[in-house]
């Protein structure tokens, strides 16, 4: 395994990759800034179903040092781009139960447009680019790696991704 010292630490003083439950409530509690009029928190949580199958739990695996480095780079870039007061992200690894948080992103900016846009940008890049993988364990006892990023089928390049657009109403 590559020693984590090969990668510079993340900008924020948070643990990017966590083997223990994410304390999103504590993170929110601390995420305030006198210049920030808008705080946006995203929590990606484990659903009890996916593509028609009943999910028992998920298991996430990561390349810790590389994921930490990439998440730090993404946060630094977003902070600069949108002039954020706060930008942090944590991703859980290991077994994650239904309703638990697998990933959390918090952004804070003077006005709300920036906090929303940056938050979405950060989670989209983490989900598509960071070396973090999901294995779904189903209630029927089977499991499957995947539902992974499939952008390459469109872009023709494993390093080129297509990010989310705002959802239109149903």
């Amino acid at each position, binding site marked *: 395994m590559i020693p984590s010292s090969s990668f510079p630490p993340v900008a924020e003083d948070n643990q990017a990759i966590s083997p223990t439950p994410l304390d999103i409530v504590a993170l929110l509690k601390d995420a305030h800034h006198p210049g920030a009029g808008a705080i946006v928190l995203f929590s990606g949580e484990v659903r009890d179903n996916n593509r028609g199958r009943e999910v028992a739990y998920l298991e996430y695996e990561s390349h810790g040092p590389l994921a930490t480095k990439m998440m730090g780079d993404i946060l630094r870039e977003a902070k600069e781009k949108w002039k954020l007061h706060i930008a942090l992200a944590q991703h859980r690894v290991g077994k994650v139960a239904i309703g638990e948080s697998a990933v959390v992103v918090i952004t804070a900016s003077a006005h709300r447009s920036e906090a929303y846009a940056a938050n979405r940008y950060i989670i989209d890049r983490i989900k598509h680019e960071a070396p973090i*993988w999901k294995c779904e364990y189903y209630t029927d006892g089977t499991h499957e*790696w*995947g*539902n992974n*990023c499939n952008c390459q089928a469109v872009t023709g390049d494993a*390093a080129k991704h297509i990010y989310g657009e705002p959802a239109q109403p149903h």
Partner: protein
Amino acid sequence: MKIHVYAALKEYFTPEFELAEPIRNTDELKICLLAINATAGDILKTCRFAVEDGFIDNEFKLKEHDTVIIIPPSSGG
């Protein structure tokens, strides 16, 4: 050369193994990997490669004592 694989790739290869052959770049590495498991062709096409401090492409000159990380697509969704 040491090879570390992750996630779905572990259904094709052992998580960590060594290759004794002289391998100069990722194209040659893919050929070696397919010699071990010929069914890994499709998934290897979607993978990225990394050495220590970042991702590499086929231009990167691999050395005998490198540890190569093979990275399948991220969790996405």
